[in-house]
């Protein structure tokens, strides 16, 4: 196991950043997914959408150049690149729901071998609400879940989610610090593994059933 959580997050973000092709439209969720933007390879232009109404979102503004009218979906001050634009929430979710966003990257409370996701409520404990997550996972062409492999020692990749769902059967790929899974019609397949992990370690920390791909590769990060 990778005990250093910051290192684990960095591994996940770096791996996901390799997934995108030039000029693809991508929406990164709050938290861990946001880190992905820091690791986009040189030469790949990823167009970032923010569901509050931006295409072409850029990095945080330089000190002294903050504009309180340019925020992202997490209310952080951001910038907009020269090719960027603004729009209202109807256009934003038309883009999201209408399969115009190539990738959405989101975190998870639980994710399961059927590609179902729970990410918005722990009844009786924490009720932040679903925000745009339910639309993003239903509407984006590809859904990538970024998640630490376990939380307080307990697996997050389950046979079946127990918390209320964000959506069912929508996840395409799960990236943890230990490896990469693809959700296939036949079930979960481990397709990449961290060079510092092992299939045994992953089995021991995963509740979901999964097959190991014949083409299992080392996770490139």
């Amino acid at each position, binding site marked *: 196991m990778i005990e250093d959580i910051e290192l684990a997050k960095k591994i996940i973000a770096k791996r996901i950043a390799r997934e995108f092709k030039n000029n693809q439209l991508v929406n990164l969720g709050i938290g861990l997914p946001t880190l992905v933007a820091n690791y986009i390879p040189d030469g790949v232009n990823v167009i970032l959408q*923010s*569901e*509050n*109404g*931006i295409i072409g979102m850029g990095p945080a503004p330089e000190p002294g150049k903050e*504009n*309180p*009218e*340019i*925020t*992202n*979906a*997490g*209310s952080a001050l951001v910038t*907009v690149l020269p090719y960027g634009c*603004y*729009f*209202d*929430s*109807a256009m*934003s*979710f038309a883009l*999201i*729901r209408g399969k115009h966003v190539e990738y959405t990257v989101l975190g998870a409370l639980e994710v399961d071998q059927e590609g*179902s996701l729970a990410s918005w409520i722990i009844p009786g404990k924490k*009720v*932040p*609400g*679903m*925000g*745009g*997550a*339910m*639309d993003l996972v*239903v*509407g984006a062409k590809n859904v990538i879940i970024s998640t630490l492999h376990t939380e307080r020692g307990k697996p997050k990749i389950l046979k079946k989610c127990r918390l*209320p*769902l*964000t*959506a*069912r*059967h929508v996840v395409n790929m799960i990236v943890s610090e230990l490896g990469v899974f693809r959700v296939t019609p036949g079930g979960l397949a481990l397709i990449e593994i961290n060079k510092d992990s092992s299939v045994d370690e992953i089995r021991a920390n995963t509740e979901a059933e999964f097959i190991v791909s014949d083409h299992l590769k080392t996770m490139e990060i």
Partner: protein
Amino acid sequence: MFDKIISRDDFSGMLKDDMVIMVGGFLGCGTPETLIDIIIASAAKNLTLICNDTSFVDRGVGRLVASRQAAKVITSHIGTNPETGRQMVDGTLAVELVPQGTLVERVRCAGAGLGGVLTPTGVGTVVEEGKQKITVDGHEYLLELPLRADLAIISGSTVDKAGNVVYNATTRNFNPLMAMAAPVVVVEAKEVVEIGQIMPELVMTPSPLVTHIFKSEKR
């Protein structure tokens, strides 16, 4: 020709207990803060708020939760305002959580005279409870119904005296949609300009939708 500019007292006089109020903004960006000040200064209570999120205790629509003037909130996210969760748990505030894209379309339906939309969002989740499910071409959808308000308060960046509105950057969000979904629409204008000063292609909310203009008192 147009006479839409109103005072604090004019706006205060429009407020009533039990009103359904739509409030523009996204985590406080693009929210009419002076109008919220006036609601807080008023005695209006038992309000139903329709808003993207409940922002923060000290900024945006969330201040109306903190002031305990809301009896119900219809929104997509309450995670940034601990007061919303607290009142929900103690039973003094009803919270209806709606996926953000569904909230948008429900407001749009009301404004556009549509009876509802079919969305794939929420199928197979608790969101589908109590809703009609309709299958089209083998795909399941939820029938989501219009959301109307008695009053919409929105924030505009540049507003001409006829009521044409331009929203800067990410202040746009729900504002132009809410401007269509209530019979009374008050825009809090950062800047009021003469008619003819706004490029007609740039207008995001056409003037007839805006019933009243209030000049913002914020910087």
